[in-house]
């Protein structure tokens, strides 16, 4: 079983987001970068699957050299090797094209992504890879298992869950509840230093989109406080002042 885990490097969840260069770039000053939390679930599940069924886990990232420290963390958690495609991740479509190029020559049985990255929130790469590779793609999975040469997924649907059996190769994206993310131990951290991290150059791809500008949400007006002894008044305010309920 050869599994590839696609990994984004994102600002830590506690980051206060601001922008620089005339609001065209994320202000990275003081920002800690981490493995995208959903990709970390994919990675952990991939490792669990190879522990049970044998095989290898490769992580792939589209990024520049500053991503290497975070990629090493994925190796410390337990991936066997890593590939970094040496380019800025312009958008989801660019990233997927680069990953698809690596996957085509890699002979993978299963490719995992996160449900979305917590920075660009595209949720695109799983489906894009599916179509680029002509593979089935199952999105937002809370369970990923392998049985009799097939994959069993449980995925979120609007208002519920669904179990799906899929042929391999396939691509799937991870949702919370898939597994408990693993924390690297000292042995893993030591081993990660010498595990292979291959850097490859990107293929030429037309840019489908261009990020022009960023904005932060408009600041809120001061809160209107209601006395707790007269809390029922809130319902009246919501109806007649905010006009937000019927």
């Amino acid at each position, binding site marked *: 079983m050869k599994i590839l885990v696609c990994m984004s490097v994102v600002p830590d*969840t506690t980051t206060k*987001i601001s922008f620089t260069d005339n609001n065209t770039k994320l202000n990275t000053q003081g920002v800690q970068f981490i493995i995208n939390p959903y990709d970390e679930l994919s990675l952990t599940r991939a490792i669990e699957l190879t522990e049970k069924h044998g095989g290898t886990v490769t992580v792939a990232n589209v990024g520049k050299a500053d991503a290497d420290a975070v990629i090493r963390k994925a190796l410390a958690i337990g991936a066997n090797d890593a590939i970094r495609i040496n380019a800025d991740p312009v958008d989801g479509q660019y990233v997927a094209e680069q990953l698809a190029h690596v996957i085509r020559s890699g002979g993978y049985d299963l490719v995992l992504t996160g449900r979305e990255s917590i920075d660009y929130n595209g949720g695109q790469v799983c489906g894009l890879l599916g179509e680029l590779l002509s593979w089935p793609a199952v*999105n937002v999975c809370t369970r990923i298992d392998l049985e009799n040469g097939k994959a069993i997924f449980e995925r979120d649907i609007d208002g519920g869950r669904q179990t799906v059996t899929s042929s391999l190769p396939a691509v799937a994206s991870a949702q919370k509840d898939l597994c408990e993310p693993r924390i690297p131990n000292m042995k893993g951290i030591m081993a990660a230093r010498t595990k292979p991290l291959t850097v490859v150059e990107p293929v030429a791809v037309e840019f489908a989109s261009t990020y022009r500008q960023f904005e932060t*949400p408009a600041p809120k007006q001061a809160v209107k406080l209601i006395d707790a002894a007269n809390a029922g008044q809130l319902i009246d305010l919501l109806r007649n002042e905010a006009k937000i*309920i019927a």
Partner: protein
Amino acid sequence: MTGIYAENSEGIFKKSVLEAASYASRISNGGVLAVCIGQPKDGEADKLAQYGVSKLIVVDGIPAFDSQAYTAEITKIFSANQVQHIVLANTYEGKTLAPRISVAMNASLATNVVDFPDTSNGFRIRRGVFSGKGFAIVELNKTNKVIAITPNSTELKQNPVTISIEHSQAAAHQINTEITATSKAAGKIPLTEAEVVVSAGRGMKGPENWKMVEELAELLGAATACSKPVADMDWRPHNEHVGQTGITIKPNLYIAIGISGAIQHLAGVSSSKVIVVINKDPEAPFFKAADYGIVGDAFDVLPQLIEAARASKN
């Protein structure tokens, strides 16, 4: 002509589909073509017509959802009708299909879109990024475009037209995925589409106290949600968890009870139109993001709210 994929929820077109229709109708300069897979119930096509859909093509012959077969049929119809702009709702199904359709149609893809495009200088859309902590203005460079809009983000405006309905028989597809079980919570409002959300956190002290939360939600026609610690402790199912690593929502009204308002939680709810915070700690950071606040104990405040909501209903 602009196209929409009309997600068919057991024969019903939900509000998110009507929003896609309304959006497509506003950006189109020559009618809106909707593609739906499987027969909609009687009267449902008229709902689409109210929001500007001039033609509906119903695809017959695909018994269950398979993203490859669906994509092949949808793109076949859009290509044959020279559709360049395709609008979908950013639901689980929409998010699964939008990327595939963009590849099949060589289109630029924008998901999580929260506003109508600005076409004064290229084709620019506004989309949510950094999990509710920011927005990005993105130019879509390709002639064909696939736009997945976030529910409750864009104006739903009627534009009644006459609709024609055609049927298209699906080709024989190799089906790679098989659905073996489906479980749905009956009668519940999907969190992402709910206009009112009542959410609670650790301040509720235990799962047994959620009856009050559910009662208030029912009176307000609201969906229920929760904070991350509550989902992590299994007090509530994870699909109710809103926040940076949970679901991002933007209801008209968000009522947070016993949630302090960590930055990760705010990220998932800060786009709500009106936020109400109920917390016994006056220093809770959530009050800074709130429109209305009550400093008080949930066990004291909630019964009053339930009573007031019930009284005003009668």
